């Protein structure tokens, strides 16, 4: 039998040419790849569009977007061919090891390397003196050095480093380096960080806040502050303590540095943000950026923990420069905990007030967060702990005080759900309590208080698409909520939690304001027809290579294996700001679409010339360009391509993305601004063993509005993975410190990540709100899905046991203590006889139901409206929706500095404002 019929494949086999001859048009007019179910109604396809059409609809060729797709790099991973940081082996390499501080806080008096230098096999040794310049991920807080300059600030802080011919020699040399310290009083309790101190951990010069260890403080008041309490009939108050958690990614940090004969440095590193390392290396090594190539290896998990420029990366480069040989440094797990950058240990005081209409007339949050020894992303984290819980609800007022302090612990930083996770948990648990006080169903309560689509939050964030309502409605049905909530027996419960997260930070961290794009993508297509994508977006396992490949494939109507992504090296890829703040899909795919549209235009033009058909009548199908009305009239992709290449050669194009202008003008207004936001609602069902306090999560229903699932397979993966990670934080993970401040569990046996046995069945539910600015409607699915699982579990624990937790993780010993307390209070002898929470609806329930259904209609109208009228938070409270609250009512305030009255009785983190900045004291 002839193989001809099967020659529609695209895979090159050795010795064969399965491609149809260039320009022949192929055998099949239409390929199986063009799936009519994926083509939107607006383009004559069968994909329903309940929320209307999208600006990218006409680019949909039905090949890739919306299809469950294995990640393009998955074959490397499952066959063990992927090279992670430690897999990079260069000829003649040396092994680098780091000398670390045994003290929490100390002055380095002297470093004696004389014995280590003598050791055979030691090639280079470096200390702080070799790299004086500071660096840090945020330009405003560059407080890190490659190695200690004057002081060490936490156990495990870097003091010196050694490169030797092998690991054991390097370790021996580390032992031989003698460091003399003067130990200083260390701080471990974040509350102490608020006080003045003899030796603050860092010195911010004229910007130093008092003589304290406050690194950043925030004060914000929005809305009708004066009436929030007088108007309230239900009040929630809870003081939370969240333990610090670590990302717990599989691959420990590893780096290889190599200077080539021309004097250029290549740094191989599993980085989420190669661009910032690029900048930091230039600063620290004092060489221009063009002399450095940052090569991102495969990344074995990041979750925010590989997004700072790191001192060990500097060390490798310095050692390699000194020794003239490649240097490899690989961490063991303990070192991963030393460098940390995990979620901040936090103390959050949450007060929520609701009025007689069941409206949220006020949220007051005070968040003290423990930054550990360095600033890292902390400036932003301090804002995020406040501003990221001002939605999805319409609020009467919002008061936030936040402070981040330095302590002598491994530095906290950004971790999946950056800054939003802990305070979100506190709010959602508070809402559960408020609903209970009002005797209404907590889901109804939420449904009746949601902001509509295309609105502005109380702090002025521009919200576009919102799938929140659908998320809530779908988990309610899927979980059989109405038959379970407050009806399960003692020890068995169900709970709801919601989430809201940025889809890309609106303001780039390291940028000349505004003009430079956030993401840029270059395309190149030569005569072979394959498309090379050059992008700087760092695939850290989340699948950004796949998303960019899918986007280009879709626009050009090509199968995925004709697309190759080159995203590893700063030498070849355009600058991308990195994989953080869930920005990559939104920004990079938008940039890729723009680039692909240019090529598409070239191809259509060429096809139009060949077929003598007007360009706007042509569509791209799978590797074929043809007349919409008469598909027989058309040319093959290659034919059109070669025509387009006449006199020009390879086609190239460039696309970029920049956020639109948004937000308001008050200080800090940019923090939390994003071109779009994701929304989610989860229901968790749990069992609590009332006699041991141990909690087991049985099942989770997880609805997430990602805008549009470009790849449903990876969206589901992100939802399930987020649940796993969030369950760790809510049930068992914590960085445990001993009484002297020692980190007791820097290992994966005692840092308790849930095992497969603890993992419940997760039912991912994808909600597609079709964001008009997102690529094909997409927003994010990488971080937002983590937020709701924590409060959902906490609320389920309440439903099961009647205990409102306010400390995470909810380990057996913590919950049991509360159970015991309650037994004592109620004079009940066994936990098995504790009262089971119950609910009898008040009159408010039906009022809220009616409001929710009206709002549902309102929302749909706003979605379908051609012209979106403004809607500012406040309308629910009788304000004119078209005008920001503060512009129409003097009671609606915006304040970002506390007044004397507040300072006379500040809350915990708010007390950071009692200090006066140095520059304001002098003169």
């Amino acid at each position: 039998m002839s193989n001809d019929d099967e020659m529609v494949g695209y895979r090159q086999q050795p010795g064969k040419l399965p491609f149809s001859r260039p320009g022949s048009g192929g055998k099949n007019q239409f390929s199986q790849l063009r799936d009519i179910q994926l083509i939107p109604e607006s383009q004559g396809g069968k994909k329903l569009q309940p929320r209307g059409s999208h600006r990218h609809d006409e680019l949909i060729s039905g090949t890739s977007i919306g299809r469950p797709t294995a990640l393009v790099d998955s074959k490397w991973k499952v066959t063990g061919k992927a090279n992670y940081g430690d897999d990079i082996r260069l000829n003649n390499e040396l092994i680098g090891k780091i000398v670390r501080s045994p003290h929490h806080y100390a002055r380095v008096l002297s470093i004696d390397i004389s014995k280590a230098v003598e050791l055979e096999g030691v090639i280079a040794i470096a200390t702080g003196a070799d790299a004086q310049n500071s660096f840090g991920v945020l330009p405003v807080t560059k407080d890190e050095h490659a190695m200690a300059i004057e002081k060490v600030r936490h156990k495990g802080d870097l003091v010196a480093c050694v490169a030797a011919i092998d690991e054991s020699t390097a370790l021996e040399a580390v032992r031989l380096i003698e460091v003399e310290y003067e130990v200083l009083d260390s701080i471990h309790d974040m509350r102490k960080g608020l006080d003045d101190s003899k030796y603050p951990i860092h010195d911010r010069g004229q910007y130093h806040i008092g003589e304290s260890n406050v690194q950043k403080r925030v004060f914000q008041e929005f809305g009708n502050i004066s009436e929030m309490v007088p108007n309230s009939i239900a009040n929630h108050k809870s003081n939370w303590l969240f333990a610090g958690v670590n990302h717990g990614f599989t691959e420990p940090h590893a780096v290889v540095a190599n200077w080539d004969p021309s004097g250029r440095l290549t740094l191989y590193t599993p980085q989420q943000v190669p661009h910032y390392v690029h900048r930091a290396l230039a600063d620290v090594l004092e060489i221009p950026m063009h002399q450095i190539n940052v090569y991102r290896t495969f990344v074995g998990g990041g979750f925010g923990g590989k997004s700072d420029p790191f001192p060990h990366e500097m060390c490798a480069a310095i050692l390699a420069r000194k020794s003239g040989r490649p240097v490899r440094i690989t961490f063991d797990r303990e070192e991963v905990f030393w460098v940390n950058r995990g979620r901040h240990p936090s103390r959050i005081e949450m007060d929520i007030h609701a009025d007689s209409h069941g409206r949220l007339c006020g949220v007051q949050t005070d968040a003290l967060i423990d930054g550990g020894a360095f600033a890292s992303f902390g400036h932003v984290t301090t804002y995020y702990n406040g501003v990221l819980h001002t939605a999805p609800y319409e609020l009467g007022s919002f008061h936030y005080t936040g402070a981040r302090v330095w302590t002598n612990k491994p530095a906290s930083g950004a971790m999946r759900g950056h800054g939003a996770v802990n305070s979100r948990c506190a709010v959602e648990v508070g809402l559960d309590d408020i609903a209970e006080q009002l005797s209404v169903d907590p889901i109804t309560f939420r449904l009746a208080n949601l902001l509509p689509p295309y609105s502005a939050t109380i702090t002025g964030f521009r919200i576009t698409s919102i799938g929140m309502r659908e998320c809530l409605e779908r988990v309610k049905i899927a979980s059989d909520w109405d038959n379970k909530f407050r009806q399960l027996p003692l020890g068995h419960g169900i709970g709801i939690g919601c989430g809201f997260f940025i889809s890309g930070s609106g303001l780039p961290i390291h940028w000349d304001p505004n003009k430079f794009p956030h993401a840029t993508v270059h395309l190149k297509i030569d005569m072979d027809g394959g498309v090379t994508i050059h992008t700087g977006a760092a695939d850290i396992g989340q699948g950004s290579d796949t998303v960019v490949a899918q986007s280009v494939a879709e626009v050009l109507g090509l199968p995925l294996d004709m697309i190759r992504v080159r995203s590893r090296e700063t030498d070849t890829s355009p600058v991308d700001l990195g994989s953080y703040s869930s920005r990559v899909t939104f920004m990079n795919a938008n940039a890729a679409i723009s680039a692909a549209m240019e090529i598409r235009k070239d191809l259509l033009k060429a096809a139009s010339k060949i077929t003598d058909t007007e360009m706007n009548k042509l569509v791209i199908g799978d590797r074929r360009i043809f007349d919409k009305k008469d598909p027989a009239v058309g040319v093959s992709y290659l034919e059109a391509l070669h025509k387009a290449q006449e006199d020009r050669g390879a086609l190239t194009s460039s696309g970029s993305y920049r956020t639109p202008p948004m937000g308001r003008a008050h200080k800090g207004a940019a923090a939390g601004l994003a071109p779009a936001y994701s929304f989610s609602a989860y229901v968790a069902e749990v069992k609590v063993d009332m006699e041991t306090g141990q909690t087991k999560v049985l099942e989770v229903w997880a609805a997430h509005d990602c805008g549009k699932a470009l790849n449903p397979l990876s969206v589901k993966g992100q939802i399930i993975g987020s649940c796993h990670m969030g369950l760790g934080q809510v049930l068992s993970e914590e960085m445990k410190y001993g009484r002297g401040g020692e980190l007791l569990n820097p290992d994966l046996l005692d840092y308790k990540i849930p095992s497969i046995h603890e993992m419940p069945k997760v039912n991912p539910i994808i909600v597609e709100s079709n964001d008009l600015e997102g690529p094909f409607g997409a927003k994010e699915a990488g971080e937002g899905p983590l937020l709701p699982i924590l409060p959902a579990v906490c609320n389920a624990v309440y439903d099961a046991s009647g205990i409102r937790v306010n400390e995470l993780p909810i380990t057996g010993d913590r919950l049991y203590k509360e159970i015991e307390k309650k037994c004592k209070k109620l004079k009940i002898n066994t936990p098995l006889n504790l009262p089971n929470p119950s609910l009898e609806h008040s009159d408010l329930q039906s009022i809220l139901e009616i409001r929710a259904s009206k709002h549902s209609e309102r929302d749909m109208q706003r979605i379908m409206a051609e012209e979106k009228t403004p809607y500012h938070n406040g309308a629910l409270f009788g304000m004119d929706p078209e005008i920001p609250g503060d512009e129409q009512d003097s009671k609606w305030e915006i304040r970002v500095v506390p007044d004397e009255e507040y300072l006379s009785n500040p809350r915990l983190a708010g007390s950071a404002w009692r200090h006066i900045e140095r520059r304001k004291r002098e003169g």
Partner: protein
Amino acid sequence: MPPFKLHTPSSLDEAFEIVNILREQNLDYDWVAGGTDLIPNYKWHINTKSNVISLSKIEELHKISKNHIGAMARLYDISQSSEIHPLIAKSASLVASVMIRRSATLGGNICLDTRCFWFNQSEEWRESIDYCHKCDCGTGADCRVIPNQNTLCVATYQADMAPVLMCLGTTIHMSSPEGNRSVPMKDFFKLDGITKNILLEDELVTHITLPDDVFEWEGDYQKLTQRDSWDFPEAGVAVLWKKGIKGPSELRVATTGIESIPRFHSEESQKIIETWSGSDSIEELAESIRKSVKPVLNTWFQPSYRRKMVKVLSRRASKGLLEI
């Protein structure tokens, strides 16, 4: 990992020959079975020795039958065996994770080193707290859990196999170049956290034997952990009994994961047998076991909680008693 020389004798005699040679050369060594405890400790530079003698090639130590389990029997095989007492299999199935159980052995489990937050850490970590009494690296350091005493280590014995075996009346058999000896399992352990057991220098455990009446015993073993996999017992309670006419005719209780050695609670159980009255007796038993144990703060859960949970575990392990 610090370098060591590995010896793999294929018989006990050969093993003891190696011992003699090493001793003549004044060299120190450790026995290694599955290595799932010893090797992590070596990696952390905890009490490392220059030589390690593996028992894995010694055929006679591998045997499993209903009255005899060799020291080298793998916990996985024990957990799957239908020949041995089901509670032994259950205890084995609760140890660590399935992967670890494939290497882990009975002998290694019984002889497991005691554990402590201040001790099971890397060398740099321990150096940063100036070490502790159990592995003081010549510094004469104090205990970090109960300071100012400098004589006692209160590290916790966190192995799962001992309680059930003790209750079943197991005899433990040991061998050394000096000869063989046997003791009841309940007399095998010896305070403190450093001494751990009665093994003399150069002595090893060869096997355990179980009495003929072993299958007349029933009961349960309950284990407290944070997670269902990997985690060492934060407390473990075995309650075993022989059925009498009304209630148990004999009753034995043993605990692990709470103190520096597993404990056989003969007094407490004896009292209950004498005054047996159903569920009240169970409550009384559970309370008396709780009272008798004194955990310290050196593992994952708070000691006060572990102590309270001993009561819950005792009650739960006794549940079957009500069905008599």
